[in-house]
C-alpha cells in the first residue's frame, strides 16, 4: 500500500506541477510541488522512498524539460541526499520552526544544485541556458510558496498523525 502511494505520488505530482506551471505560465518555476513533497518525505519516510521519489519524479519532469535530460532528476536527487543528511544530523527536533527553516534550506539547496548543474551543462556545451536575474526572482517566489505549502502540510498532517508533533518544544 505504502509502495503504491509513493509511486503514485512520484507520477501524479510532476504532472500536476506541469499543469500549474501552464504553457509559459506565471507559476512556472515559482511553485515547486515536487520539492515540497520531497521535504515532507524526508521528514516522514524511509530514505529509500525519498530517493525513489526524487529520482522517479525528477526523470518524469526531465521528459518535459527544455534543459539537458537528467538535470532536474540530478538536482532533486542531490537535494534529497543533502536534506536527508541534514535531517539525520541537525534537524532531529520536529518543531514547526525547524520545519520552516528546513523548507528554506531545501529550496536554497535545490536551486543551488540546479544552478550548479545548469552552469556545468553550459560549460560542457550541452545547453545554451544560464540562470538570469529573473530566475533568482523566481527562487524568492519559490521560497514563499514552499513555506506556505509547508505550513499547510504541517497543520494538515498534524490533524491526523503525531509524526510532526514537537518532541521537545511545546
Amino acid at each position: 500500500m505504502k509502495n503504491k502511494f509513493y509511486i503514485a505520488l512520484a507520477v501524479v505530482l510532476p504532472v500536476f506541477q506541469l499543469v500549474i506551471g501552464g504553457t509559459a505560465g506565471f507559476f512556472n518555476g515559482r511553485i515547486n510541488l515536487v520539492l515540497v513533497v520531497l521535504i515532507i518525505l524526508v521528514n516522514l519516510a524511509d530514505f529509500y522512498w525519498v530517493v525513489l521519489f526524487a529520482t522517479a519524479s525528477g526523470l518524469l519532469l526531465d521528459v518535459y524539460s527544455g534543459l539537458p535530460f537528467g538535470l532536474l532528476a540530478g538536482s532533486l536527487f542531490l537535494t534529497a541526499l543533502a536534506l536527508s543528511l541534514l535531517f539525520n544530523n541537525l534537524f532531529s527536533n520536529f518543531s514547526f520552526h525547524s520545519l520552516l527553516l528546513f523548507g528554506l534550506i531545501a529550496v536554497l539547496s535545490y536551486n543551488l544544485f540546479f544552478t550548479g548543474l545548469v552552469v556545468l551543462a553550459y560549460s560542457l556545451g550541452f545547453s545554451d541556458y544560464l540562470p538570469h536575474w529573473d530566475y533568482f526572482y523566481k527562487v524568492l517566489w519559490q521560497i514563499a510558496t514552499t513555506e506556505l505549502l509547508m505550513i499547510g502540510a504541517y497543520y494538515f498532517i498534524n490533524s491526523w498523525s503525531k509524526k510532526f508533533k514537537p518532541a521537545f518544544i511545546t
Partner: protein
Amino acid sequence: MIKSSVIGLTAIFLAVFFHYIGWLRPIESLVVIAFSPVQQLAGSIYGGGAGIYDFWLKKRDLVKENRSLQAELAAAAIDASKFKALEEENALLKKEINFIDENNFKFVAAKIISGVSDPLSQSVIINRGRRDGLEKGLAVIADSGIMIGKISEVEDDFSKVVLLSDNKSRVAATIQNLDHTVGLVEGQYGLSFSMTNIPQNQEIKDGDLVVTSGLEGKIPKNLLIAKVAGVRSVESEIFKTAILKPIILLDGLSYVLAVIP
C-alpha cells in the same frame, strides 16, 4: 543510506545514457502521450478554478433555497462552460483555417500538451512529431497566422517548441516600414521580445509590424511576429533595438500549426 543513494544515482546515469543513445525515446513518447489527456483534464479544471469557486458560493446559497434548483443550475453551468469552451475552440480553429486557405504552405495542426518543467526555458510541448513530418527549426503559428515560436526538439510523437519570449530564441525578421529593416527578434527572459541589430539610420515607429524575413530556410517569409512598441537607441552604438509587443499572449495557447515551407 549509501545503498539507496548508489541505486538512485545509477538509475539517473542509466536513464541519461539511454536517453542520449535513443533507447528511452519510446518510453518518453509513451509517457507524454499517456499523460496528455490527464494533463488537459487537470489543466481545464485548474484553469476554471476561479469559476468553480464562484459557482460553489452560488451553490451554497441555492442549497438553502431549493435543492432541486441547485442541481439544475449545476447542470446548466457545466453545459454553459462546455459550450463556451467549444465556442472559443471553434473560433480559434476557424481563424486558423482561414489562414491556411489564404496561404500555400503545408501545415500540421497540433495541440499543446503542456508547458515545460524547468524554470529557465519558455517552451511548450505539442502532440505532433517526426511521424507527422515535423523537424527542428520549423515555425509554429497560432491564431490567424501569428508566429509563436520554433520547433527545438523533435521526437517520434511529440515536439518541443521554443517560444519567441525564450531568451535563447532568435528569429530573422523584417519590419514592415519604408526601409524594410532587417534584424533579429530575440526573447527577453520569458517576459517579452525585442528586435536587435537594427542600423541607427533606419526609420522605425510605434505600431510598425514585424514579420519573418524568410532568411531562415525553414521559416517562410511574412509570418506576423509582433508590433513595434518603442525604440531603444544610444547614439554611440552602431545598432539600435526595437521593443516589440506580442500580438497574442503566449500563455494559455491551446492549438497551433507547424508550418512546413
